[in-house]
């Protein structure tokens, strides 16, 4: 036995207890001469090997570790190893004010930051009991930003999924189109990602002048770009060969595993929280829920493409409403509303001179409010609430618990990537190794959201 290999049972080699006899040889290749490893494996006349795919594998969406048991080229068992991107976001939020929490949770699933913020803020607003007081304009802005974010998320899903299958052009087009929306985000929020834009009570600031025109100019270009993606993907024989009937998971499987989002809709079940439990006024928008009945990776891909068109429909309606609904973008209750009134000047972006004049020159009460809200934050009455939004990846829920203080007692997120990742085993066992990549890509997990 060489130094680099061992035949003892070890943590990595063990599968389900009782699954393999105690004396099953385990060859653990941890360096050394590869020839000696393969010689030992050959001597056993055993093709069953366990492969760690990841966490540093370019095809596994970030730091996902897939523990695959292979019999030749067939995957006999697949397990997802997670936790490599755990950053303690939920715990950290317990030590920050309710408003500061937004800047943390936006970084969970960094491909859909605005959905993280929206779920969190909707939950906080529910505990506060101010859901009905959110200004109409704030809701329209939220919807517009979320739908733009949905398009960017789906573009990333298709781009990285395409790249993992070797289609670099899909990747470049996907990111090229995403860039258009990121510029809009930069225009509105000042940041391209991790926006911290949606706040409990509304949004941080109104959209800037010229934003609506920029979106209206961008939309036809975006539509054209997505059309190109469709031309590349929809009927491409190579892509269909890789995705049709791959990563199969039917409705029963989805329900049993708690899978939501495009994966669930690819089974033909039109589940969408925007329709079934509307929030932010989604019930007033005209859009469809695309479904497929193929239960496979190809169906999910088509659903993502279709959803981007539906999102563009919603954005167009929202933009029209923004033209028609002037008004505040933050709740009127001065005890909750974060006090900032930002303005851009020659010295950069900061609180507007009007706001400064009021709090520093005219109203001592405003100044006290400003100080109280920034240092201590607002208090949330004791209680708990769960709010869920339909994120690009599925149901993104936020459960916040308050003990009446200025900070969350607990902020828990039900991230769809985490739940959907359970389906990897069901989707890829029995298939080929190459199909695992496609199955994972069709789930579109983002490890920042899985590990939090």
């Amino acid at each position, binding site marked *: 036995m060489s130094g680099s290999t061992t035949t003892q049972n070890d943590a990595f080699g063990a599968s389900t207890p009782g699954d393999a006899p105690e004396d099953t040889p385990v060859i653990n290749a941890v360096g050394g001469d590869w020839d000696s490893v393969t010689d030992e494996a050959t001597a056993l006349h055993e093709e069953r090997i366990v492969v760690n795919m990841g966490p540093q594998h370019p095809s596994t969406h970030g730091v996902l570790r897939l523990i695959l048991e292979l019999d030749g080229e067939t995957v006999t068992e697949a397990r997802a190893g997670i936790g490599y991107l755990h950053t303690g976001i939920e715990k950290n939020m317990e030590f920050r004010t309710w408003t500061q929490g937004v800047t943390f949770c936006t970084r969970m699933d960094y491909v859909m930051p605005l959905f993280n913020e929206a779920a969190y803020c909707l939950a906080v607003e529910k505990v506060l009991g101010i859901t009905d007081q959110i200004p109409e304009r704030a809701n329209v802005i939220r919807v517009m930003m979320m739908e733009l974010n949905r398009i960017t998320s789906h573009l990333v899903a298709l781009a990285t999924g395409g790249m993992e299958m070797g289609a670099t052009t899909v990747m470049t087009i996907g990111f090229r189109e995403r860039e258009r929306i990121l510029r809009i985000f930069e225009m509105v929020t000042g940041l391209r990602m991790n926006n911290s834009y949606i706040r409990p009570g509304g949004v*941080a600031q109104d959209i800037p002048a010229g934003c609506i025109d920029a979106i209206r100019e961008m939309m036809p270009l975006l539509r054209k770009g997505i059309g190109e993606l469709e031309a590349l993907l929809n009927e491409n024989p190579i892509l269909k060969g890789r995705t049709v009937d791959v990563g199969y998971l039917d409705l029963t499987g989805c329900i049993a595993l708690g899978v939501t989002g495009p994966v669930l809709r690819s089974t033909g079940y039109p589940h969408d929280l925007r329709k079934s439990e509307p929030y932010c006024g989604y019930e007033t928008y005209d859009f469809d829920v695309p479904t*497929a009945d193929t239960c496979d990776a190809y169906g999910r891909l088509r659903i993502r493409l279709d959803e981007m068109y539906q999102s563009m429909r919603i954005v167009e309606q929202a933009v029209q409403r923004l033209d028609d609904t002037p008004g505040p973008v933050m709740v009127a209750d001065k005890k909750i509303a974060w006090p900032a009134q930002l303005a851009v000047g020659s*010295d950069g972006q900061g609180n507007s001179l009007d706001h400064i*004049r009021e709090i520093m020159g005219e109203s001592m009460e405003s100044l006290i409010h400003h100080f109280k809200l920034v240092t201590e934050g607002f208090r949330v009455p004791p209680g708990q609430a769960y709010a869920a939004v339909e994120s690009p990846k599925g149901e993104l829920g936020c459960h916040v618990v308050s003990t009446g203080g200025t900070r969350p007692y607990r902020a828990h997120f039900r991230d769809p990537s985490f739940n959907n990742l359970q389906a990897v085993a069901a989707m890829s066992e029995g298939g080929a190794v190459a199909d695992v990549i496609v199955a994972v890509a069709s789930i579109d997990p983002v490890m920042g959201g899985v590990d939090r």
Partner: protein
Amino acid sequence: MADNGNRRPDPDKGGSFKDLFAPVAGFGVTFATMFRKVQTEEYPEQKRPTQLRFHGRHQLNRHPDGLEKCVGCELCAWACPADAILVEGANNDDAAGERFSPGERYGRVYQINYLRCIFCGLCIEACPTRALTMTNEYELADDNRADLIFTKDQLLAPVLSGMLPAPHPMVEGMDERDYYLGKVTGATPAQQEWVERHDGDTTVDEPDTLPVEHQEAGQHAGEGRP
């Protein structure tokens, strides 16, 4: 594929000809792209300007007469979710010639740790005097940690025309509130004369050049938050 008619709001495509060539439609995209302008941005040779609201490097601003706007209230440090800001206030002292800002207090130490800063912008929203703003400057990379802790002298806005660098007295006849009401428009001859008289002999504090000293336990802004 469930066909729900509304998939494309403007169905300008379709037809059997398109369907026939659908499997190779990607080649059309590739071919058409050859005649397009390249999307690649030639950074750093050509820098694309950011949007106006872009969250870049911070700046500590001055009143029109050159006095600092920062009053050392530490609201920015309180608002910061990443504990990146350290502020230590001190008293202005007209008698000793140490008048840096209108009013009672000024920010004696001001540091932003760009290793911690997440550019969320809560600090500029918290600042009650618009002392702290965010510029559009984004090139903040460096090869060592110490240089990324920006000190007050790095963050302070440049002295523009009509301004006199602090310390110097307030505009005569004005009080703190008048500064915030926008009544001060520039430095006065009296302030000019005072600065010339005290050139170099004011007993100001040592310049804040040793950032690491202030990072000791118990001194960091954010520790002891409620």
